[in-house]
């Protein structure tokens, strides 16, 4: 099929077209027995006309068609260690490191060290576990947001939400990223221990490796004989620095006065990225903890506070 040489130049040229020739139809054209009439044609999904193209498409999917381009090599790099404080994982491939980082360090709650698969779940967690204003508002209105992206339903309790997740969205009843808080009031890492303790650890039953509940500061568990497997999680928690806070009594007020509470938090940059809470000094940590109850550090801006304030204002 020889194409006129000017055609390629035309393609590369400017948009536009020649003036159309005049149309002049004779009514005799469409008289019987002749019946041609020009018409655009439309083919529906399952029409046989599409058979060839569909077959080619599926051959491609099944990789029978030869592919071009060499497969780029996975670059191996000299071994390096994860730079996050307390993590001693070693890598020799960037993709592995990327996955490790995103899984364990990217969406981490600075309160309780839980890691989440996404920013959305982390935000929800911080709101529901670490924001006492949320608790107060939740007494009066539906605050528990459905976890499924795109679903705007809200619920009175986390149990109601779980039921909605199971009934409406067909989620498993033991969905790991929807662990309910056990204690009333803001969560301490001690409460986290309670949740851990619930995980089935019976040797006879295959125990579930706890998701995201384990303190992310210890990625490599210290070697221990198989019999101590159940105690593994607990040991990690005990060695986690913030576990020191488990010793503190609950000291925050029952009623929370938002406008009148103004606590100076010297080392926290509230607008900046999330920081670890320093807990080396037991005495000041109590005050610091109280500060954090007032202004829980967030991964993103003070959106939650603003939202809460609006709720309080009745908007």
């Amino acid at each position: 099929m020889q194409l006129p040489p000017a055609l390629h130049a035309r393609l590369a040229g400017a948009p536009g077209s020649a003036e159309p020739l005049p149309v002049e139809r004779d009514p005799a054209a469409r008289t019987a027995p002749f019946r041609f009439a020009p018409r655009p044609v439309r083919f529906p999904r399952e029409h046989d006309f599409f058979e060839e193209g569909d077959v080619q498409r599926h051959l491609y999917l099944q990789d029978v068609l030869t592919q071009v381009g060499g497969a780029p090599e996975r670059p191996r790099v000299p071994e390096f260690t994860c730079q996050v404080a307390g993590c001693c994982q070693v890598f020799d491939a960037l993709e592995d490191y990327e996955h490790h980082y995103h899984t364990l360090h990217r969406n981490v709650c600075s309160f309780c060290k839980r890691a989440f698969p996404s920013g959305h779940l982390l935000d929800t967690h911080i709101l529901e576990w670490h924001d006492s204003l949320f608790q107060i508002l939740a007494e009066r209105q539906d605050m528990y947001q459905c976890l499924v992206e795109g679903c705007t339903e809200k619920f009175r309790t986390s149990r109601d939400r779980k039921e909605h997740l199971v009934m409406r969205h067909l989620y498993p009843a033991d969905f790991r990223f929807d662990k309910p808080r056990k204690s009333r009031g803001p969560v301490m890492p001690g409460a986290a221990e309670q949740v851990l303790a619930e995980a089935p650890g019976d040797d006879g039953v295959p125990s579930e490796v706890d998701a995201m509940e384990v303190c992310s500061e210890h990625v490599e568990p210290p070697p221990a004989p198989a019999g101590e497997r159940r105690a593994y999680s607990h040991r990690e928690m005990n060695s986690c620095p913030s576990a020191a806070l488990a010793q503190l009594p609950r000291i925050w007020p029952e009623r929370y006065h938002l406008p009148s509470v103004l606590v100076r938090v010297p080392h926290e940059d509230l607008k900046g990225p999330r920081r670890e809470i320093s807990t080396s000094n037991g005495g000041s940590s109590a005050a610091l903890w109280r500060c954090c109850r007032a202004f829980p550090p967030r991964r993103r801006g003070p959106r939650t506070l603003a939202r809460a304030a609006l709720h309080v204002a009745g908007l």
Partner: protein
Amino acid sequence: MWSRQRGRLKPLCCGVEELRCRRREREAALRKARREQQLVSKRLLRDEALEEAEEGCVAMIFGEAEIQQFLRLAQRGTEEKERERALVSLRRGLQRPEMQQTFIRLEGSIRTLVGLLTSNQALLQLEAARCLHELSHSEQSAVVEACLPATSYLLTYLSGHSSDFIELCLYTLGNLIVESEAVRRQLLPQGIVPALAACIQSPHLTVLEALGYALSQLLQAKEAPEKIIPSVLGSTLPQHMLQLLQPGPKLNLGVAVEFAWCLHYIICSQVNNALLITQGALSTLGLLLLDLAGAVQRTEDAGLELLACPVLRCLSNLLTEAAAEAVGGQLQLRDERVVAALFILLQFLLQKQPSLLPEGLWLLNNLTANSPSFCTSLLSLDLIEPLLHLLSVSNVVSMLVLTVLCNVAEKGPAYCQRLWPGPLLSSLLDTLAFSDTEVVGQSLELLQLLFLYQPGAAQAFLQQSGLQALQRHEEVAQLQDRVHALQQTALHG
């Protein structure tokens, strides 16, 4: 541009002839499946570079006891490396159908795997996901449906950040989606459409290609026009898809192929094509067509026809929409570069994949049917002769070529004048020798138009033994009346 995980044909163990034979068999099987409307294909993501790097076990057959051992080690092993190695061994084993069956029958096996998938150990997570992926690729429904408990997690992970992991989850989801309506009945309420809509904003090409694959599987489902496409159209997915199809330096072929097919499934379902037109689908696809024509001239790239096919289909179907008339003022629908591009693609298809020629000619029909502008372009760009060259390819192609010629001729004398003289008459006489009734019928229609609008055509026809050519069809029921009418006109004016 092709993902590293694409499986490659291995020419080492079999000859070219055997490959061709295998391919023919696959094609035949696919054709049969399509006729039965059971066209289902899955993608398998296996990192061959990774597998070569792994030492030790070539996939052996493992029994129940070994599988249980691997699971135990993976779950409760004390050394991280040990746990990983156990899962890797499991994954290698799960490449075999027998092991898959054994695995799913073991009590608690899936539960353990899901537990590992959601664990805090990144590499275990990845390996568990690979195991699931192998299972999702199985041809046995029982094996695939055993993966269902993992879907809520796979969807949750789509809003994470680790591109390799997300890619794997997407291909796994794509395989699961296509398995059965039962699977989709679970995935839809779990929020797969919003999850994909959020994920499509990823900057990673591998993720986008995987997403396109998963979405195309979802849109290809039988119940898609009623149950899936409306919510897809209601999401931000169409806008993002069109963005990813914009021609330019950022256009990635693998990604574009997937989303072009997604668009095709949406459009040919005729749910709400007007919406797509308002979002600029015609404009984008028109520009993409131009870009494709440019690309086929530049490179010998295998694979451009994989993109050409859905683009041609989308454009053809969209042009039949009433809304298309409304945006007819837009440049793309008057721009004769579209016709130039189409012919360049037709030439390409003729060389590369002649079976796709009808799709290109279908677009040409829809462009020229009601458009004096495009008919004029065909004439002014000298494209009639190349068109005639296609007449001998196949009956379907001939039929379409003749239809396009009729589209031009029926617009009147000014057009027929430009069709004459030239090779048209002798080509027509050749087609009259065809045995296919439809093709002959269409030739007769064209002849009638020429006789009507072009003085001298009938005369020339007679002189070139046209009457004899007509005679052989005198007895054919479908053609009789027209043959007689033409004989009359030719003889008596």
